[in-house]
């Protein structure tokens, strides 16, 4: 919220907010030993595998790490193309 106000006023995001966001990403990768590059690779592999069975839109696939306490969770959001859309296409 304060970041939004700052942007409206043309000011910079408070540095603590930047620190927190950077730390969030760093900690996920430190805890899991997975690099951002690995996640991209994993996403490509998932798209390829799933596409063999179901028609999906590769551009709408999202892979991210979520934190629950000190537990890390890999979340994949893979929207399936509906039959109607397929007919139009």
């Amino acid at each position, binding site marked *: 919220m304060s970041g939004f106000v700052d942007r409206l006023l043309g000011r910079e995001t408070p540095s*603590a907010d930047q620190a927190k966001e950077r730390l969030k990403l760093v900690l996920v990768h*430190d805890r899991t030993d997975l690099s951002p590059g690995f996640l991209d690779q994993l996403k490509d592999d998932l798209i390829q595998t799933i596409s063999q069975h179901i028609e999906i839109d590769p551009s709408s696939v999202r892979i991210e790490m979520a934190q629950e306490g*000190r537990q890390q969770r890999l979340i994949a959001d893979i929207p399936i193309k509906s039959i109607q859309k397929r007919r139009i296409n």
Partner: protein
Amino acid sequence: MTGKVVTITSGKGGVGKTTATANIGAALAARGQKVVCIDADIGLRNLDVVLGLENRIVYDLVDIVEGRCRIRQSLIRDKRLNELYLIPSAQTRDKSAVSPSDMVKLCDELRSDFDWIIIDSPAGIERGFRNAIAPADLVLVITNPEISAVRDADRIIGLIESEEKGPALLVINRINQELVRKGDMLTAEDVLELLAIELLGMIPEDNSVLLSTNRGVPVVLDGKSRAGQAIRNIAYRLLGDSIPMENIGEDGGFIGRITRLIRPGGD
């Protein structure tokens, strides 16, 4: 007596482990508890100077482990607090002189004579850290609201869990309320959310810590020091006292709010 072994560690150096060890020990001793602080940082001895006991060292941790003295001979009694003792680290010896099992054995012997055995861990994740946590019943992780200290704290928390010494408790040190208020320092809430472990206490940044260290007097004995009060609260929580946690809201906590009451133009 069945003493409890508490290890204070951090990953990163310079965040306040030694000051926390000396002062938690002093605060417990001031409450009549029998306390021994052990400096486990071999080669980089410092707990002695923070406690003002550097001129009284005869034997050290390595002398005990290598059988050159009895435990009792190595204990240095504090000048002010009759119930506070120090086992100093060796300054010149090889770091591998002490093993985790040596520390377990030493602490098991100390348990019968002391209520609290407080171990000051070296920075890092090497042998010295493993020595320090091996005998621990409870591990305190101390950090600063600063990006590299939090990252290293997270790493050390993971290692404590994997050594089955968790769950560790968190102490956030050197919170600068002015910077928090300006949005230029992580809040205690931010740090807690990132590290996701239980909070034992928060210590504000306070020049009185430096002054006390210069004089070799624990800051918890200074009734006027805010940091001293915060560390006394941490020690009392260890004793089971239910002391409400200082407000850790994003407006900079209770100190921040008081600052703004005193200086309303500061916003």
